């Protein structure tokens, strides 16, 4: 593959022609418009050129690249997360073939969406502002005011400059006549811009030659413009407004996209609990105190934003947010209340509203629909019912496709419509045109029906120049998926990139945009949100806990495999099982013992309890997800795959291997964190989490080996302790093969040069604690620092006594003393870290 800067012209050789014919052999479009072939059955010119370039890569190369695309997509892990918090797998594959849109077509689409954006903005402003269209009876107002759609608290809270709607998603299709049509506008939290961007990046990386110099419009510019608008919205407050992205949290749809966008736009990703309203302004809680927020890019549904004025049972929102908006101290994009634009009752009235509010006729039509609350509408609905889609105007109700209903359900639908016709909107479904999708298995093109989501954002000039013209920019690209109109991208299995063709090759734009204003150089500091610090702390703790447990389970598997089923039982296996929390196995039958031990270990991997390896791996992932924007891409890639092998291990052998793999993966994750994360306070808290956890685990092991074990097990327990901490070789190097408790204590308790010893861990914790910001910049030592000093001194005292005496029995007591105080200290330090963050 060449990476030359001059594009190689696509040569139409015979071989290419043959390949092209092969690619197209199975492509038989349905009736109506097709994107690939014109009405005369001729390949459309822009497709002709593109497909030549595509086949020029050769069949094998295409196959490899297609696999590469799926791999990259999986690794980036930008999954469209469904409602089920446990399902992290995306069932998407990314089609290597983009959907091509010509310059001319795009001009039409762009104009259409711009008009729609202005229309939606005007309607939103009217509904929560002047209410002119409502007063004059242009809309069935009663249905519009349905609870769950309309929020009385939003009335009068929209910005004065008349540009309320800042971002917008539009779902479109190309119908069977080749006309672009609107399926539905998305104003509340339009998912997909991040996915569109990701798809573009993944494809450009896998098909560099196709993408590098292709005459297609680039996406980066549009996103930069969107960011510019967000800053402009906050410009009234301060010269450098603080913009944040508010997400509903790791359990919400599209959380990873929120994290991706936040990181791409370089703005903090926050959850409701990160924000607080004081003095009618919004602040972000950070380790160093409160920092003001000027603009919120909102990815949380209206209802949940403020428990004071909207849904009182919301625990996601920020109390007092509406008042902060009302007082003009914060700008929210889109404003709270925007969901009203998605109200189905508006569907039939868009053309009329466009005429009334903008004085223009609607350029890009939507599906034909009508309100059943009018007699003629009801009559028509009853006549055509089996072919229609019905939208109930009640909270949380989805579209009803009458064609998919049984006769019985159809009858009951009819009865419901007759009962309350004013609560229904009927729509005549649209049919989409066919367009080519690459069939990866057969290496040929097949016709499919596609849906698109495009994105528009307010032009910053609309805000900067005050009230006046409101205008929007449309991102020249978007998310395309295989699916009938109205079907969500969530339900689709194939997504595509969208190419807007330009007249000439477009330069590649870096994701780090060119600065348009002077930049203040910043470092990570005390502005780290407290929640992020908390998640990093727990990320560290769970990671270390998983590591410790995986090591113990691994040792248990090793011992289980080493012993023959009939032979004498290794006593250390018993003590391992005890540490892991299983009762002693008392049966004397060797086969039964083996079976029982294996059962216990299998449980360790699969158990859904709090200490199961899979549970711990899930906890690591969950905390990592919550701080996605703080982790490097390499570390993230490892985390997404963490523990996958555990799920697939079904034998003692594979169980051991899976544990080993998990240990290595964790080491790699934390190694990458140490090497690539800036060492800010969040990193320090992650490290504190890890070493606190390690302290606790090591002390449990030590106390088991030296105090709790029966005499016949203690030697085995010592050996196991060394193995579990991977200090076996270190010990052997120092002391040869003699196992002496004194030596064990020195290596694992006192030796400050050994990362596996308590002494080292205390030293490291002290260094990290000393570097954390102190509340009110007090020069006194914090409680956790004092406790740590206490624990370290006890440990050192115990070390002194140990070295003076030789009697093993005494070591154990001394060790108990030191261990206990260390343990207490660790416990208190742990709880104090928690306090510290609040």
């Amino acid at each position, binding site marked *: 593959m060449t990476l030359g800067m001059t594009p190689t012209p696509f040569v139409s050789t015979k071989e290419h022609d043959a390949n092209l014919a092969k690619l197209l052999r199975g492509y038989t479009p349905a009736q109506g418009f097709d994107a690939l072939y014109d009405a005369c059955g001729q390949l459309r010119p822009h497709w002709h050129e593109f497909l030549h370039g595509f086949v020029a890569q050769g069949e094998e190369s295409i196959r490899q690249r297609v696999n590469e695309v799926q791999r990259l997509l999986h690794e980036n892990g930008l999954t469209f997360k469904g409602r089920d918090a446990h399902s992290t797998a995306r069932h998407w594959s990314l089609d290597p073939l983009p959907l091509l849109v010509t310059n001319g077509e795009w001009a039409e689409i762009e104009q259409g969406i711009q008009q729609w954006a202005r229309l939606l903005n005007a309607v939103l402003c009217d509904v929560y502002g002047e209410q002119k269209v409502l*007063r004059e009876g242009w809309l069935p107002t009663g249905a519009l005011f*349905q609870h769950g759609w309309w929020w*009385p608290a939003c009335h*009068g809270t929209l910005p004065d400059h008349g540009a309320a709607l800042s971002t917008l998603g539009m779902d479109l299709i190309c119908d069977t006549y080749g006309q672009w049509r609107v399926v539905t506008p998305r104003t509340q939290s339009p998912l997909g811009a991040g996915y569109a961007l990701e798809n573009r990046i993944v494809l450009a990386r896998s098909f560099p030659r196709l993408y590098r110099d292709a005459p297609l419009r680039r996406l980066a510019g549009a996103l930069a413009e969107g960011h510019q608008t967000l800053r402009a919205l906050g410009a009234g407050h301060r010269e450098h407004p603080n913009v944040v992205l508010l997400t509903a949290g790791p359990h919400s749809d599209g959380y990873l996209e929120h994290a991706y966008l936040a990181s791409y736009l370089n703005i903090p990703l926050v959850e409701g609990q990160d924000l607080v309203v*004081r*003095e009618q302004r919004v602040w972000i809680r950070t380790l160093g105190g409160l920092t003001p927020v000027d603009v919120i890019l909102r990815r949380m549904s209206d209802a949940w934003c403020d428990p*004071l004025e909207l849904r009182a049972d919301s625990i996601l929102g920020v109390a007092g947010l509406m008042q902060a908006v009302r007082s003009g101290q914060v700008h929210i994009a889109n404003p709270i209340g925007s969901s009203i634009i998605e109200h189905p009752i508006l569907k039939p009235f868009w053309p009329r509203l466009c005429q009334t509010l903008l004085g223009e006729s609607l350029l890009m039509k939507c599906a034909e629909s009508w309100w059943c609350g009018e007699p003629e509408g009801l009559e028509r609905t009853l006549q055509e019912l089996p072919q229609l889609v019905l939208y109930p105007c009640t909270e949380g109700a989805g579209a009803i496709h009458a064609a998919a209903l049984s006769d019985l359900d159809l009858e009951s639908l009819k009865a419901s419509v007759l009962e309350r016709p004013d609560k229904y909107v009927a729509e005549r479904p649209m049919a989409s045109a066919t367009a080519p999708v690459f069939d990866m298995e057969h290496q040929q093109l097949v016709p499919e029906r596609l849906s698109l989501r495009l994105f528009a954002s307010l032009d910053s000039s609309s805000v900067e120049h005050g009230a006046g013209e409101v205008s929007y920019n449309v991102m020249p690209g978007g998310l395309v998926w295989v699916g009938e109109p109205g079907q969500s991208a969530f339900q689709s299995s194939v997504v595509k990139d969208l190419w807007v063709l330009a007249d000439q090759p477009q330069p590649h734009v870096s994701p780090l945009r060119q600065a348009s204003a002077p930049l203040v150089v910043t470092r990570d500091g005390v502005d780290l949100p407290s929640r992020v610090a908390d998640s990093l702390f727990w990320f560290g703790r769970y990671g270390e806990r998983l590591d410790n447990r995986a090591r113990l389970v691994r040792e248990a598997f090793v011992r289980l495999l080493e012993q023959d089923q009939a032979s004498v039982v290794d006593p250390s296996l018993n003590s391992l099982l005890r540490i892991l929390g299983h009762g002693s196995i008392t049966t004397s039958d060797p086969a039964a013992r083996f079976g029982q031990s294996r059962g216990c270990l299998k449980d360790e991997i699969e158990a859904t309890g709090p200490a199961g390896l899979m549970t711990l791996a899930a906890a690591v992932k969950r905390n990592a997800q919550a701080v996605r924007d703080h982790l490097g891409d390499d570390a993230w890639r490892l985390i997404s795959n963490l523990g996958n092998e555990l799920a697939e291990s079904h034998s003692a052998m594979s169980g051991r291997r899976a544990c080993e793999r998990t240990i290595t993966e964790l080491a790699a994750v934390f190694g990458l964190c140490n090497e690539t994360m800036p060492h800010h306070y969040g990193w320090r808290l992650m490290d504190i989490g890890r070493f606190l956890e390690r302290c606790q685990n090591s002390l449990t092991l030590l106390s088991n080996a030296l105090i709790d074990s029966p005499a016949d097990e203690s030697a085995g327990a010592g050996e196991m302790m060394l193995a579990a901490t991977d200090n076996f070789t270190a010990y052997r190097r120092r002391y040869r093969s003699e196992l002496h408790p004194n030596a064990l204590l020195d290596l694992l308790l006192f030796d400050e040069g050994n990362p596996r010893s308590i002494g080292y861990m205390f030293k490291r914790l002290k260094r990290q604690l000393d570097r954390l910001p102190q509340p009110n910049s007090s020069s006194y030592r914090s409680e956790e620092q004092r406790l740590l000093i206490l624990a370290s001194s006890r440990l050192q005292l115990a070390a002194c006594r140990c070295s003076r005496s030789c009697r093993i029995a005494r070591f154990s007591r001394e060790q108990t003393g030191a261990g206990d105080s260390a343990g207490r200290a660790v416990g208190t330090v742990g709880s104090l870290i928690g306090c510290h963050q609040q």
Partner: protein
Amino acid sequence: MIYRLRHTTRYEYASMVTLCHSEARMLPRQLPWQHCDESEITIFPITVSRCMHTDVFGNRVLYFSLEEPHQSLGITIDTRIRTSARPAPVDNGRPWRSSLALSVGCQERLDTAMVSVDSPLVVSSDSLRDYALPSFPEHRTALEGVLDLNQRIFNEFSYDPGYTTVATPIDDVLLNRRGVCQDFAHLMIGCLRSLGFPTRYISGYLETLPPPGQPRLIGADASHAWLAVYLPESGWLELDPTNGSLSGEKHIINAWGRDYADVAPLKGVMSGGGSQHLTVSVDVEPLGETSSPP
């Protein structure tokens, strides 16, 4: 009538509250038949932010926040109010169904639309409609119908303060035939909306008279709730199903909305606090029949 109205709400918390945002709808509305002098507002401890706005229903809303640690919160609104009789209802003489079909003016269209559909606490249902229908034979006028329904609720339901809470659904109230003023208002709103009448919930106060021969007890009054239905060609008619009457000079209107959730006198979200103890004291003190300087 002239009244001095004092409404005090006080919260005591088991543990410290570090931050509290509140919204009070305790400032009586200015209406043609209800003139309010400026209210005296006392809030303790000291508030950081205090801000007034008017909500979409026209109620005055007082937002305030307490941003220092505190263990109790008190708010008192003291207002001098002059009330007069409501305009007498007009019967348009049409059968009620044909009244419902009449078109209305612009402002009315908006005001009625907001209170004609389901709301957080009032969801119309078949059982509500079935309960209401006997009051609305086809030939009856809307006015006759609503008066009859008002009377039926008064007669058939018993006032039982211990029986319901704010969260009791109206279907339970309908089934068990007991509740308090708020329940009866919600119930009648549900009945009327099920038939298609726009109906608003009203929160306010009612002067209560002491038993004969006993002095008036200060602070023993309570908030009251009733409703107003929109009758085409006549306008909004206030009905008090708890007392089986229309509202009069003794009814002081605080706020109105779709249901109680829109007009709760005091709402708050706080950090910390633990369990809480609430005391409310309402005093409607009659000052005389005519306007005179205090």
